[in-house]
């Protein structure tokens, strides 16, 4: 198990970067959704 925790620790940067891109996607979608709802 300790070995596994170690690889997990090694992937911290990967996790943060992935989440950043995920949040970016959600923001882009949210902005477009806002524009869509604001138009008739």
């Amino acid at each position, binding site marked *: 198990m300790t070995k596994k925790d170690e*690889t*997990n620790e090694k*992937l*911290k940067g*990967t*996790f943060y970067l*992935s*989440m950043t891109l*995920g949040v970016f*996607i*959600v923001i882009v*979608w949210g902005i477009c*959704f806002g524009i*869509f709802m604001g*138009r*008739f």
Partner: protein
Amino acid sequence: MHLHKYEKYWLTFGVGSLIVFLLITGIMAFHNGSHPPSAKKTINYEKVDELAPFNNPGVHRVSGKDWDYEVVVIASAFAYIKPVLEVPVGAKVKFIATTKDVVHGFEIAKTNINMMLEPGYVSEFVTTVNKKGDYLIVCNEYCGVGHAQMHSMLKVVDKK
């Protein structure tokens, strides 16, 4: 198959977001009736001028329907009939359009009214025009050499 702890979190977040997108658009479509334009009426595209409602293009006030106005538009290479449409602000309007020749687009710029016009099919979209202004209508599907000259105007004006 083995997934890392972080990869599980990431996939949960990613797939979760996709599900949220689908839920929002799905509920809007199936519960609030906000589908993309998907009318299934057909028409003889060679006789559009003779067939209702296209024998009388333009803006018409209607009663007893779910909407207050019908805007009937005929597209052909490379113009729309009629060139100017005027509707009062706040009206619920049904846009009804078709083409007499090739595929055209019917896009009212800076609105969500954006539909394909295909020979033999009637395209429809209902919306409430809630902002005053002049809205440029453009053909957004390539239809031939005059494609970029094909446009008209929707004027949303004060109620009379």
